[in-house]
């Protein structure tokens, strides 16, 4: 009996202690926890890994912010850059060299101070292309930092950092570009070029692993961010504690527990019970069900997430512009907004996120028009769809099976509408990895619905180079095999155009071409959403869709 009483007392003390600790702790439920903290490592493309990186690491630059939007979220002002680890900067047009004056007195979790050596280390590591996925090199290449060319892959002697990034003194660094390129500052805001703490990285490197990939994949990533890794159990939980020496001030929330709860419905009920304060990756229906719930807010922003139909230019009959236009006119956009996004989406009028600098709405639009679609089909030689059965395989509408809850109603709405017009559409759900392989590597998906392309470089030009420039001209992820010599030429000029007004005009021209050619059939831009306790304040959207816990505080 005494033993039982002792156990009960101990349990009570533990519960009371936990409740007291909870006063400053944030319990954040996500679909996973970081699988790695190495942006050049295998887990870099996983969103929850990025959440880990951006809360522990620190960029050289970031965007200023706009006022709070109507749902309570703060959004970035993409036209204004702010220094983070950089205090001030200048650009010499004659030598294409950026001089960065680094912030002094910045301390990491271990007490190490930030200086020019950390910047050089970060770029040297990127150029080493020693990780599984060389994102640091890729972003440097996109920003036209000199000598970050594809030569590094074939020629080991091209890998060491040269005079393109140099240390002027302990707190001054010079970075030279190979050509004028407006993407230089935008790429330095992206997690794939956040700064490492050289001292600790070196301390955790080995002869076999001189750039500490194992350490950053599995243990920690030393940097200068607002939080430090307290504990990390992959597939389970990721606990951060505040870096009290953080140069922008100690974080208001002292401890963050990021917990993996795979089922979105469970994340929802735990939030509703009050045990968690923040959840992400619910379905649109679940977010909708929380609106009006006591003590819970749902915040969202039309950021950079969108939905479009992909038609492969190398596959008949999608090589026919009349067919592509007919498909675009067949898509019941408003129905999709209502049944799949519960009103949290808006018709997409272009090929670039409308919040990005350089976005332009083309005069050519493809609003739902079944009669117009029928007329175009007839003009293409397939009246009422007669003759299209020969292309039945091409009309298999592919989508990611893991996203059935969200995409299921959408593909059903599209296929029903298209069948009424005469297209022989069938559905083809496939696993995410298979979809990625066929989209990125084989590029053989004939017809698909895609809701996962968000250019992390916040710029219409970046999106153009990523998705629409032909591979021969430097296009990177041209999944529909679109090739247009005129567009390639315009982009080649725009990419190195130092005058922003002229560059923007060229980007408008590019976007008009994309709409005329129906390179994608844009459907909607949908709201990126989070649900959280009413007393959690400061929610801010960032283009990588990762929450920065430093932004948050309890009221």
């Amino acid at each position, binding site marked *: 009996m005494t033993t039982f009483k002792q156990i009960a007392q101990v349990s009570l003390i533990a519960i009371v202690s936990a409740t007291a600790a909870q006063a400053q702790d944030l319990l954040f439920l996500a679909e996973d926890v970081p699988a790695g903290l190495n942006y050049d490592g295998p887990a870099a493309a996983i969103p929850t890994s990025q959440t880990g990186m951006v809360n522990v690491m620190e960029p050289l630059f970031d965007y200023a912010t706009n006022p709070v939007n109507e749902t309570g979220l703060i959004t970035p002002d993409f036209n204004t850059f702010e220094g983070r680890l950089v205090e001030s900067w200048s650009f010499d047009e004659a030598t294409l060299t950026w001089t960065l004056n680094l912030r002094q007195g910045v301390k990491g979790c271990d007490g190490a101070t930030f200086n020019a050596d950390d910047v050089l280390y970060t770029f040297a590591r990127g150029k080493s292309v020693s990780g599984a996925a060389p994102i640091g090199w890729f972003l440097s290449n996109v920003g036209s930092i000199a000598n970050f060319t594809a030569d590094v892959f074939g020629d080991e002697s091209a890998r060491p950092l040269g005079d393109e990034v140099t240390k002027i003194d302990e707190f001054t660094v010079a970075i030279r570009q190979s050509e004028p390129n407006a993407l230089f500052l935008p790429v330095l805001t992206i997690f794939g070029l956040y700064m490492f703490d050289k001292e600790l990285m070196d301390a955790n490197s080995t002869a076999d692993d001189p750039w500490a990939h194992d350490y950053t994949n599995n243990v920690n990533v030393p940097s200068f961010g607002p939080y430090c890794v307290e504990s990390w159990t992959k597939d389970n939980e990721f606990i951060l504690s505040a870096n009290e020496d953080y140069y922008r001030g100690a974080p208001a929330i002292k401890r963050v527990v990021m917990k993996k709860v795979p*089922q979105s419905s469970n994340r929802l009920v735990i939030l509703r019970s009050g045990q968690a304060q923040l959840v992400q990756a619910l379905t649109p229906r679940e977010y909708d069900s929380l609106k009006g719930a006591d003590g819970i807010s749902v915040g969202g922003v039309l950021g950079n997430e969108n939905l479009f139909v992909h038609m492969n230019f190398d596959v008949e009959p999608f090589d026919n512009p009349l067919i592509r236009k007919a498909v675009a006119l067949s898509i019941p956009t408003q129905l999709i907004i209502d049944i799949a996004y519960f009103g949290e989406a808006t018709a997409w009028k272009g090929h670039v996120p409308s919040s990005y600098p350089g976005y332009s709405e083309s005069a050519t639009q493809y609003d739902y028009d079944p009669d117009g679609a029928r007329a175009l089909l007839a003009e293409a030689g397939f009246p009422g769809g007669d003759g299209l059965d020969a292309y039945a395989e091409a009309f298999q509408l592919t989508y990611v099976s893991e996203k059935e809850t969200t995409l299921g109603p959408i593909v059903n709405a599209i296929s029903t509408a298209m069948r009424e017009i005469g297209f022989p559409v069938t559905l083809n759900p496939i696993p995410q990895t298979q979809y990625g392989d066929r989209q990125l590597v084989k590029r053989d998906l004939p017809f698909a619905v895609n809701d996962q392309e968000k250019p992390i470089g916040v710029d219409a030009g970046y999106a153009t180079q990523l998705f629409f420039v032909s591979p021969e001209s430097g296009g990177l992820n041209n999944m529909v095999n679109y090739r247009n010599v005129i567009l390639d030429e315009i982009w080649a000029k725009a990419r190195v155009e130092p005058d922003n007004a002229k560059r923007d005009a060229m980007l408008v021209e590019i976007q008009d071409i994309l709409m005329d050619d129906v390179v994608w059939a844009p459907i909607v831009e949908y709201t990126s959403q989070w649900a959280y306790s009413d007393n959690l304040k400061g929610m801010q959207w960032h283009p990588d869709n990762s929450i920065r816990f430093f932004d948050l505080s309890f009221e």
Partner: protein
Amino acid sequence: MLTRYVIRRIAVGFVQLFFLIVVVFFLIRLLPADPVSRFVGLNPSVEAYALAERNLGLDRPVMVQLGHYLGLLPSEGKGLLQGHLGTSWVTGSLVATEISRALPVTLELLTLAFFSALLISVPVGMIAALRPGGWADKGVFVYSLFAGSQPEFWWALLFVHLFFFTLGVAPAPLGILSPLTTAPPVVTGFVTVDSLLAGRPEVFLEALHHFMLPVATMVFILSGPIIKMVRQNMVRALSSDFVLYARCAGLSRRRVALYALRAAMAPSITIIGILYGFMLGGAVLIESVFSLGGLGQYAIRSILAFDYPAIQGVILVITAISLLVYLALDLIHAFIDPRVTF
């Protein structure tokens, strides 16, 4: 005699494992996707693709890859022969480390669930067999139809909604411990055991509390087939000659029932063992609903990500455990049934 049998079984088990390893190695390479594409998501250039392919070792001939995996090419690095299961392509962690984290969770869940299911199912099956057509028998029939006709994840979600969200008697489905509880130092990997070893009874109680719903869900699902099996075998045993003889000899009803149970348990143990082996990977839905992070969840994640080393590692471990379970079953059979000889 028994020792020779065990050694022979283990030797055969190794041969089975070897063939399974080779078959799995080739089968997963027939999956309709290229794992390299997942690595180059943000940077899909030709050069980056080639680099990722080289890093994964997929640019080498497939027989060289097999030799490396088996550990037959020491110059290429460690392999199975050196006790190295490889490195996960998703996380960069050692597969052995990841499995050693996930496996105890599943074993703990299954052991608690099977132990509880046996405690409930055997007496219920016995009673149903002793009184055919009685209330227990009818109840078992209705329950078996009811529980067996719904998928386990549906029951799990229903239980979460009822016992956690509505009644508030169960903890949130957040894993084995509350996120705010500091886990005991890992000794065995079993939280219930490690908490006691660390002298932290409050953590032990908390773990049992968190296991309550997942175990209840599994018991609810597993008890159906076990009760049916026990009942059927009991009915058969009760009508056998030795039971008739025992009754004629005037033995008490209780003693006769215990004799019959012993005879009935042998085939029941077989199905329990098979179910245990099956559920090692098959408890994934329960693990997923309750955020337990067990082996089933790890297996599914690995398959969806085409993480070859992790898939191979999981299959190897599940097969090895299943072989050990079957060996244990045979030994238990011998203990229960004196007719069994080796």
